[in-house]
């Protein structure tokens, strides 16, 4: 229960942050050249000044900026993110349609990076300064420096163009209608390359942190005790070291949530996945500022939720955290 109240308090503390972000970005977007009505008129193929005035009045754009901001926040409290003139739909439903591919992609990449980061980190730490460690650490450095979009393109060249093992893009095969397990497999095969692409840099970060944290824990007294009482090495690592070495990894999930969401903008564009990131890119290109603001809100919210879950996980792994405070 204490864990919940602790994490709950941190969640409550992030509400002002969320408002700060929204107000900041709202004011920022006021400086952008052109507004919703300009975008709409351009799409209709132009129109006279009177129509523009009518439309501005209809959308509440003729009010003062503070009044518009108050209006926006008041609508937001009722989960109304405004109207996207480009898509001709409420922003909330546009975003909701695009959310599942992104969440799927992020979850898959995170699991991939976390699992292999853990495994490689442990292997590197066990053979510290011998060849497995050198190899893994070098690979980690290279992965860290690889631009994700470039890796994605090269993966397309190798796996889709030359080997023809995997589809080069899209979320599912639209040519054929599939149901049940076949649809799941189809989507999975479309997500393999994007997952690797997005997860690569995080794999590099996780394995480096896991290695450092393993090395740190391996030198602690309780590990010596465990060895002294005659436990075999596998047992020492899996039961005693791993659980303690995992803590920094879990912290990292929360810290990296935003970076991962940002990375999905690029990866979704490379693989033309219809996700939130691609929507962000499209709304910049099409000057759909209402949608852009909605994406800012949703992505900040997503980061906050991930951090909340991380807090819970952390307290579950380390009982001292809920006991101290």
């Amino acid at each position, binding site marked *: 229960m204490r864990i919940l109240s602790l994490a709950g308090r941190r969640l409550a503390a992030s509400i002002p942050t969320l408002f700060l*972000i929204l107000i900041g970005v709202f004011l920022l977007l006021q400086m952008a050249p052109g507004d919703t009505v300009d975008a709409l008129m351009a799409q209709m193929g132009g129109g006279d000044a009177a129509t523009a005035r009518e439309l501005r009045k209809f959308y509440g754009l003729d009010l003062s900026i503070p009044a518009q901001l108050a209006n926006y926040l008041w609508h937001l409290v009722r989960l109304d993110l405004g109207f996207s003139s480009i898509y001709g739909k409420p922003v909330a439903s546009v975003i909701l349609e695009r959310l599942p591919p992104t969440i799927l992609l992020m979850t898959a990449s995170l699991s991939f990076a976390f699992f292999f980061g853990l495994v490689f980190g442990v292997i590197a730490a066990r053979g510290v300064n011998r060849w497995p460690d050198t190899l893994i650490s070098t690979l980690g450095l290279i992965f860290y*420096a690889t*631009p994700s*979009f470039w890796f994605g393109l090269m993966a397309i060249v190798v796996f889709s163009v030359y080997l023809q093992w995997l589809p080069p893009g899209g979320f599912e095969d639209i040519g054929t209608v599939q149901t049940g397990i076949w649809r799941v497999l189809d989507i999975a095969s479309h997500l393999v390359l994007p997952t690797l692409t997005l997860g690569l840099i995080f794999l590099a970060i996780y394995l480096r942190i896991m290695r450092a944290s393993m090395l740190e824990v391996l030198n602690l007294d309780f590990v010596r005790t465990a060895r002294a009482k005659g436990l075999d090495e596998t047992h020492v690592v899996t039961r005693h070291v791993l659980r303690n070495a995992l803590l920094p990894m879990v912290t990292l999930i929360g810290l990296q949530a935003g970076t991962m969401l940002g990375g999905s903008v690029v990866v979704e564009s490379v693989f033309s996945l219809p996700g939130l990131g691609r929507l962000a890119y499209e709304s910049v290109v099409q000057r759909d500022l209402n949608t852009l603001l909605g994406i*800012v809100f949703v992505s900040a919210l997503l980061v906050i939720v991930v951090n909340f879950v991380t807090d819970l996980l952390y307290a579950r792994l380390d009982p001292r955290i809920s006991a101290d405070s």
Partner: protein
Amino acid sequence: MDALKRYFRSPAAVIGLILLLIVIAMAISAGWLYPRDPLSLAGRPLIWPFASPRFLLGTDNSGRDIAAQIFYGARISLLIGGVATAIAILIGILVGAFAGYYGGWVDNILMRITDAFQTLPNFVLLLVLVAVFGSTLTTVTIAVGIVSWPAPARLTRAEFLSLRNREFVQAGRTLGMRDVKIILGEILPNALPPVIVYASVVMAVAILLESALAFLRLSDPNVASWGNLIGLGRDVLRVQWYVSAIPGIAILATVLAVSLVGQGLNDALNPRLKSR
């Protein structure tokens, strides 16, 4: 001197330094080796690398020399990476120093703002900034700097928190020194080394951020940048994949060089941490 010796004892750090020097040499010699505008038409489009002695790395889809664009791209990457990092570190030090030194409500407000910047994914904020201010070289550089300051700010703040009640600071206060003088003249020089080392991480990320932006065609299209070239090569990816592949290797090498040098500096300056 000791630190220098320690630096050169690490092979990774030396490799990083050599790579970085090569990239810098490319940036300097670009104008001398390729006096023509790298974005001007140079020959037949889509010549493969090593196929023509005139174009060592081939030409792209519009017949522009890839090698020339790689050399000029080194300038752009180092320029944007360097200036954006300087901006980020400067804002970070200012915010972190004031928050850490004064504490209380100043700290509270500044950290709330830092939180806000860290909660919003930095690439999304970058998109917003580009949407509002356009994508010229100057605006993109400033935008990359603006999205990168929170981490250095937190680092500076932590350093200031641990230093602000040390004896030399108290001595300064007793002598009646003004706060600004204590912050800039007394505490900052002691807090600076870890922040400077961290600058390499900021620079690596800044270069990656700009190239991603350029790849999406949201950066300045009128300069020869590696990201632009990768984005262009995407149109001919199926057959002429080298147009995208070559600049990607350049980005990889540069980011690798910057992070290796940063890590080498870190290990050389904090020898006790090295054994980990």
